[in-house]
């Protein structure tokens, strides 16, 4: 093969892979290559990456249904997270323990996710074309509203409320005695420094499979049709508005499950302003994986979350080892928002 044919093959490949993704993949590989020289253990770096992948993957998966139905990126993820938090705190309040408390958290979160998601979906149907900005602010206002509610709701489990006042939930609640690590420790693999939270990853795989299967059912296909060409979908008898609401409910529910999975790995429930900034990392992760404003697959979720969390875990340790400075926060901000900007400004999506 001469150089020209290589070039002819390589250029479209790079184009389809996307330049930003290429740069970030290269950056991550570079991090792993220089890690040993910075005194960082590659195995523990990988373990961190897998743990954080498990923590965040379901939250990123929550982007997929809404993108499919044409509702854009789910900047309203905090709404799903709030449903999850309600489920989690209620499960603890009712005194469930161990794996039961994890399941009950999901079960109790479901009605909230369905109701909030349906309302949110109806709202998004009224503002077609301006979904993303409104989704962002729906997320923010609901977080601020729940700040008031966390203070007022009649919880009284001593592990959750402020000790001296006896009312109002704490800002962080430990789940160690409830469902902390129930998935992470299931079939956990430990080889030296390398730790893989098998259970969490299996749980994510199960959910992904369900979403994948759903997208191939009749309803799932109709949903995708509603997203890619609403006029054509209406003509072939698909109720576009209903499909969009369904997708928003699904996304919201996945967000609720996502935060519960996150907590079991993280060890704490974060209330009040905790969910405030959780949408951006999830949005940029799925974009990093190759999704766009109107196209997202399970593969995008997996690749994106691995890349994004990889960078998040590797840069602080490597830069700390090399120049004794932690620039990871700045890199996180620039990479995640740069990725969203890139997706918003691509030509093909503007003219959809």
């Amino acid at each position: 093969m001469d150089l020209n044919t290589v070039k002819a093959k390589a250029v479209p490949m790079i184009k389809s892979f996307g330049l930003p993704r290429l740069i970030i993949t290269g950056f991550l590989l570079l991090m792993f290559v220089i890690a040993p020289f910075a005194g960082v253990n590659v195995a523990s770096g990988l373990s961190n990456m897998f743990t954080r992948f498990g923590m965040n993957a379901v939250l990123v998966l929550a982007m997929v249904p809404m993108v499919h139905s044409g509702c854009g990126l789910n900047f309203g993820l905090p709404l799903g997270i709030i449903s999850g938090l309600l489920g989690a705190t209620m499960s603890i309040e009712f005194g469930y323990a161990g794996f039961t408390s994890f399941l009950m958290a999901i079960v109790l979160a479901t009605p909230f996710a369905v109701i909030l998601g349906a309302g949110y979906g109806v709202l998004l149907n009224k503002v077609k074309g301006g979904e993303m900005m409104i989704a962002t602010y729906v997320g923010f206002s609901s977080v601020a509203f729940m700040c008031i509610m966390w203070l007022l709701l009649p919880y009284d489990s001593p592990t959750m409320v402020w000790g001296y006042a006896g009312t109002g939930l704490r800002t962080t609640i430990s789940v160690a005695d409830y469902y902390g690590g129930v998935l992470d420790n299931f079939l956990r693999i430990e080889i030296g420094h390398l730790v893989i939270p098998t259970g969490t990853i299996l749980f994510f795989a199960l959910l992904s499979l369900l979403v994948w299967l759903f997208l191939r059912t009749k309803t799932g296909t109709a949903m995708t049709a509603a997203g890619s060409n609403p006029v054509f979908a209406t003509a072939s008898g698909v109720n576009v508005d209903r499909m969009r609401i369904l997708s928003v409910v699904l996304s919201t529910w996945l967000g609720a499950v996502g935060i519960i999975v996150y907590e079991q790995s993280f060890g704490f429930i974060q209330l009040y302003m905790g969910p405030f900034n959780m949408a951006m990392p999830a949005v940029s992760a799925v974009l990093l994986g190759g999704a766009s404003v109107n196209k997202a697959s399970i593969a995008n979720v997996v690749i994106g979350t691995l890349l994004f969390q990889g960078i998040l875990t590797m840069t602080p340790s490597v830069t700390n080892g090399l120049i004794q400075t932690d620039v990871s926060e700045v890199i996180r901000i620039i990479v995640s928002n740069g990725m969203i900007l890139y997706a918003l400004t691509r030509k093909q999506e503007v003219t959809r």
Partner: protein
Amino acid sequence: MTKPEINMKNISVKELIINNIVPILFICICAVGIPLSGYSGSYLLNEILSRLGRNSFLVLSLLIPVMAGMGLNFGMTLGAMAGQIGLIFVSDWSVVGIPGMVLAAIISTPISIILGYMCGTILNHAKGREMVTSYIIGFFMNGVYQLFVLYLMGSLIPISSSELILPRGYGIRNTVNLESMRKSLDNLIPFNIFGASVPVATLILVAIFCLIIIWFRRTKLGQDMRAVGQDMEVARQAGIKVERTRVLSIILSTVFAGYGMIIYLQNIGTLNTYNSHSQIGMFSIAALLVGGASVDKANIRNVFIGIILFHLMFTIAPTVGRNLIGEAQLGEYFRVFVSYGVITLALVLYEMRKRRAERIALEKGEEVAV
């Protein structure tokens, strides 16, 4: 014939309420809240005058992009960052008082122009979704700002004052003391009314800015911007350089936001290096919307009504929370909720109105076609 007319009237009253629902809601909140807070009239007057002085310039800077049809410029935080960088340099060189403010404004101008040009160019690639894009640009540039201020200042960019630099030797501290220029503009012309001090000089500056905006609307560039805001394609047919006009509107807004931030911070007296700018966009936009503005229509009246109502709520909310439920924290959360809620409500109403207008236009078009 009479029946439809009554109907029309009913619709118009209803529409009047719907179109002004946000200010009406706020008047109700304030009317209930003021007696509950128990604040005296002179205290409230003092607070409102001081907040009018410090916020007006910032909120006014939002008007120009609305005129050009680019919506609410969430990218005004870029200007705020430029203003803050100017202030950091000025306090390092220990230039105080009014000269310090002027120098900070001079330093901020080129930075604002560069950032505004960037922002405008990016927004030209994201037509139709300017707001969400400018919002993300704000976040993105916040990362660059942190890189600049937290890592490069004091290492690459010389900063000599040890009061500014973190103990580790580089990067700016979390708070920069602006005591040397605190209220230097507000108190330039001292004047009191009913026991409330009036920031006369600041308000004069704000008035001049209002006049500039009124004058600007009538200039060639201002007319072009309104044409672009009405319909980009028609404007292009008429020979207006659409992209250039849009970029210019963002640059102007960014530069003025930078000046606004300097005025704002001289009133506050301390600069929270890593926080001050991030919230200013949200509060300014919420204030403008409370004044009855929408994404495509905003005027000077909206600015002042909005600031008065929004900041009245802001002042009284914590005390009302404490008096009502015994928890000041509740009032704080309430005002955060209201700020976000107002923006959400205004955006939803705007999108719904836009869709209705499109539908009506479509139906009319079909009738003509038939």
